[in-house]
Structures are given as C-alpha cells and as structure tokens.
C-alpha cells in the first residue's frame, strides 16, 4: 500500500523515550527514517520527557499521572504515537487507561491515545504493512525479546520478520530468548547481584549462539546487556534493531567507542 499524497500520509508523533534521548540518539533517527520511508510524516514533540514508568513502578501514582497527562496532551493530536520501545509503549497502551480509571475525561483521552500507540517495529508491520527494508548488515545476530514488548504488546514475530529482509543478516535464536535480562528499571540497582546473575545468564545464552551481534527493541535491556558484555570482554556488538533496519550502523555499537581500551 503506497501513500503518496501529503494529506493522506499518517502523522506520527515520535515518542523518543528518555533512554534513547540520552544514551543513543541514533535510534531516534533510525525510527524517523523507517517511518518516513514507510510514508509517514514524522514530528517530534519537543517537550516530551518520560512516559512515567519509573514513577509508576515505584508506586508513585501521583507523579505518574502528572507525567501521563503531559504525554497525552503532547501526543493526542497525532494519528499515531510510535516509540522504539516496548516498555514505554506498554506503559502508554496498557497502563495509562488504568491510571485514570475513575476520572473521565482523562480516562477517555488515555483510552484514545492507547488505541493509537505502537511499538515501532510492530507498527511498521501490523499497521503500515511494511514487509521488508532495503538495508544491509553482514553477519550473524541474535535477538532479545524485551519482556514488556513481548508480554504486554505481543511483539515477537514482527522484528524477526523485518530483520529477515535485511541483506546479509542471519538471525539465530538464543536459548531462553524470552527470559528477562535482569534490567527491570530500578530493580538492577536495588538488587544488583540478582540482576547481575540474570544478565550473566543472558550473556551466556548470547555467547552460546556464536552470533557477532545482539539486537533488541528496548534501550533499557540493551544498555544492561551491552554493559555486561563489554565488562566480560565480549566482542559481540550491540545495536537496537531499528538501527540495523534503517541501515544506520556506521557508528560503533552500544558501549563501543571510537577508541580502544
């Protein structure tokens, strides 16, 4: 389905996510490129900050609602909210409607935004019906399913379908791909040694595939796994899947620098 006329191009508000904004802008640019290539008009509301998940998962309902209202106001005018993150979209899609359960009209506005919020890769396949990309990436990779993307949004086959179209790339499944990597937001700093065990198990699964690259759809997971891989001296390169799909892999992987240690 090709959309040519500017007036019928879907208007997408890109929800950058705080981790992409701070740690890996390239993922944001990859998301923009993928959406534009698929025929969307992309805007980036400038005053967005955070979906409120850190407050929500810490039990701070009041701050969560303040932040959620900001997001709803900033994005409800678009046709879609799209983010390169299963966890942020899970928050907006699954949990925003529950935040305001007793207070219309915010309940209605949260519902409306929820219906048009999507994780990036599943948006491309499920809504825009993109079947492939024209990027190339030579080598082997393995893919980690982030828990919220997988279990709250059902994102699993869509990234794999898109990655299958990348020329030169072969994806091998790791053992326990759908087991938590141990990030869990503040969990990794509140229970660091348990988190360390979980990420070490994950790194073992990754190494056992023999793949040269680790891909995933969530920056939290990727920062966690990349950090552990680098500490362990692993040569595995880590990218957000959007970077590979958009062909924006000229920069070093997450946690890699331009200079050697």
């Amino acid at each position, binding site marked *: 389905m090709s959309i040519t006329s500017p007036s019928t191009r879907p208007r997408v508000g890109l929800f*950058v996510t705080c981790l992409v*904004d*701070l*740690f*890996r*802008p*390239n993922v*944001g*640019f990859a998301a923009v490129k993928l959406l534009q290539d698929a025929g969307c008009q992309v805007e*980036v509301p*400038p*005053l967005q*900050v*955070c979906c*409120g998940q850190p*407050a929500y*998962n*810490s*039990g*701070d*309902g009041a*701050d969560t609602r*303040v*932040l959620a209202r*900001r997001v709803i106001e900033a994005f409800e005018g678009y046709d879609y909210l799209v983010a390169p993150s299963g966890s942020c979209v899970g928050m907006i899609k699954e949990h925003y409607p529950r935040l305001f359960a007793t207070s219309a009209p915010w309940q209605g506005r949260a519902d409306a935004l929820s219906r048009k919020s999507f994780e990036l890769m599943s948006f491309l396949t499920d809504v825009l019906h993109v079947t492939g990309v024209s990027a190339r990436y030579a080598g082997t990779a393995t893919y980690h399913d982030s*828990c*919220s993307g997988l*279990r709250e949004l059902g994102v699993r086959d869509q990234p794999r379908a898109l990655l299958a179209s990348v020329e030169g790339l072969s994806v091998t499944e790791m053992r*326990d791909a759908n*087991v*938590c990597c*141990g*990030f*869990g*937001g503040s*969990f990794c*700093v*509140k*229970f*660091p*040694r*348990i988190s*360390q*065990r*979980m*990420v*070490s*198990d994950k790194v073992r699964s990754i190494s056992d595939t023999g793949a040269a690259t680790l891909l995933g759809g969530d920056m939290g997971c990727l920062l966690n796994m990349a*950090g*552990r891989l*680098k*500490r362990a001296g692993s040569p595995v390169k880590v990218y957000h899947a959007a970077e590979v799909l958009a062909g924006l892999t000229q920069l*070093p992987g*997450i*946690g*890699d*620098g*331009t*200079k*050697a240690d």
Partner: protein
Amino acid sequence: MQSNAHDFKRRADVALEDMELQKALGLLKTGFTLKRADAVAALPEFQALRGVGREIKEHTLAHLDFYLEAFERNVRASGGHVHWASSVEEARAIVVQICRDAGAKRVTKGKSMVGEEIGVNEALEAAGVDVLETDLGEYIIQLANEPPSHIIAPAIHKTKAQITELFYKHHAKHGKTARVTEVAAIVNEAREVLREGFLAADVGITGANFLVAENGAAVIVTNEGNGDLTNTLPRVHIVTAGIEKVVPTLEDVSTILRLLARSATGQQMSVYTTFSSGPKRREDLDGPDAFHVVLLDNGRSEMLGNEFHEMLRCIRCSACMNHCPVYGAVGGHAYGWVYPGPMGAVLTPLMVGIEKTMPLPNACTLNGRCQEVCPMQIPLPAMLRRLREREFDEGLMPWLPRAGLAAWAFLARRPRLYRAVTGFGVKALAWLARGKGRLRHLPLAGAWTAARDLPAPAGETFQQAWQRRQRGSGS
C-alpha cells in the same frame, strides 16, 4: 511461621553464592518448566480452561460465605466437624486441642502450606506430640530443620548428596547404617523408615487443594501416597485449609484439576487425587473415627473485594515460581516465609504486614512470565505494583530511592529544565568516557558498574540533535 522477609536482600545474596543451592536450582530450568510446556502443548483446550477456572473461582469468591456454609453443612452431614479460625494462633490452638482430646502422642503430616502458615509442628511439639512429616520433601527438610523452599517440592534446594548425608545422620536409629547415594535407594529407605511412622500415628493432618461445597469433601493432589496413608491409618484426620479453597461442585473441581497438575509438574493427573469426606462409615473396615476441617482466614477475608482479590484464585500450583528468574536465581528461603516466588511476594506482605516485608514486592523486574503461566490468570505483576503503591503511600520507601525518584519526577515535569540538565549530563558522561564508549566507574552508579560497564552517551541528546537538524534543513 516467623517471617524473615525483611532480610530478603541479604539472604538472596547469600543464596547466589551457595554452590550447592545453585546446582539444585539449575535443575528447575529443565525440570518443571519444560514438562509444563509439553503438557500445555498437548492440551488444545488449556487456554480456554484457564478462563473457565478463573470464572469458577470468581463466582465462588463472590459468594464465599454461602459456599463455606454449604461446605460446613455437608461436612457435618457426613459426620465430620468444622472449626473456624480467624488467626494463625487460633488455628494452632484448635489443632492442638483436637490432638489432646484424642490423646494423641504421634501425628503424621501430609504436605500442608497452611500448616506451615500456622506453625502447627512447633505448636504440637510444644504440647508434647511427635510430628512426622511424610511427604518426602517435607521429611527431608524436617531432618534438616529448615523451612520449605517451594510450595510443592519443599526440598528442591537440596542436592542428592545433601540428602544422602541427612539420611546417614538420622537413620542410624532406624537400623540403617550405610550411606544411600542412588535416588532409588534413597526413596526406598525413606519408604521403609516412614512406614513405621504411618502405622503408629494417632492423628493424621493433611492440607487441601480444594474443599467441595456440594458434599463437604476435602481434596488432596499427591504423587507419593503419603497423604492417603496419613488420612486413612490414624484414628483422627484433620484437614487444615484456607477459606479460599472452597469450590462449588465436583464438576468444578474436575475443571481446575486439569489445570493444576499440568501447571505444577507437567502431569496430566497426579498419581493420587483423593476426595475425603467425614470419618469412616459404620461398616467400613478402615479409616479414621473422626474427621475435622480447620478453616483458616488469616487475612483472606480482607483481600476479598479489594485490590488484591485476584490472589485468592491461587491454586498453589507453583508455576509462577518455577518460571520466575528471580526465584530461579535465589531459591525460596530468601523470601523468608511460607510462600516464595511471585505468589509469595504478594501473599507474604498481605498476611504478615507490608511494613515487615518491604523487599518482596520490589524484588521483581515485572517481566510478567508468572502471569503468563498462571493457570488462574492472576495478574501478579499488577499486584506487586499495588503493594509498591501501598509502600509509597505509607511512606515506607527508604529515603535514598525516594529522593532519587522525587528528583527524577521534579525534572521530568519541567521539560526545559530537564533538557538543560540532561544536555549537560550527557556531555559530561561522553567526556568522561573519552571516546571509549563506556565507563567502568561512575560516582553514585556503583550498583550498576559493579557488574557492568555503563555505555556512554554520544555527547548530545536526540532532542538537541533533532532541533539542530531541523534548524539546519529549515523545515
């Protein structure tokens, strides 16, 4: 049982270094989880049955008083007695009194988590009654003087070698003087040693997976046969069960049975599923003379109709903990009470008190695997989050994370200030990383950098780069 849940973090860290425990826990990944997956795959109706099971429980809970009264009426009609206990102290006292009235000296026990909850063993021992655990896992931990670490495999934390040593140490008085090292020989020795105990018991205590309102039956689901020897041989049979165990009819039990064994061990049906109602009938050749059911509340009635209501659907299958990566890393003892893993992280605060069990709802990444495998569709992560809300609202969060959260929320609510601060922050981090792309150390980030490098930002935020490009291209 006394709670040590407040000590979770320290116990978890100890558990992570315990090589024998880690070896035992490693078997979980290939044991229960794979078997459950196979069993679920072999039953096309499994997902539909989850919904039906949920409805049955919700219907029952919505009319719990009616069904408990019906259950009681029918227990009495078959010649049994029902006792109600609001608290664990009451429940203990009731069981001790029944044993005193029966002149009991020896009690055998089938596995009962409610029995652990009320601390019945200690109460009986204090009253001069010998208690013999007969479920092999419970027997092993009784010898080791430890609490259970899993709700259906209480000794899952023990290696075979540890069990060999326990038997060697404790079975000499039964005339067993050689170490038994093979599984078959270990189980055989337990069979021989415990057989005498079964035959000598005055009172048998079992739990109940279900209480059937229609006819006053108590149902146990076992594999070893110890529950049946416990409920048949002694003169008195006592059932200890939570009030939420009641289910309307035998047909309803049949439905939930299909979910239970598959979710627990991957079996289609456990070896022994037994429905007991009342004492022996007049012409029976065996069976107890008296049948008592002790119904325990201990906070369950509070949960009805509040935000933790759904936890009452739990059928104690253990699927959640079998699939929990945190439980899989630290085992059950870290949770410090009767119920470990995800369901324990919800129940323990509710039964023991949120302020005494702070770490439990927080020791979770909210990954959701537990909810995915729960046969009763209990939204465990949502309830853990609600417990965190209670902790927050009651001001129980320690000051440091609370301050961090407040600082984050302060900034997040002020986008322009946020941009300024983070713009500076990412520059600083990028500079510190000096092109290597990562930081090995960072003040205030010790918890992260102890085990991982911190990937470093590039030097500007996405928003800065985006604004710059927008201005540059004039669009």
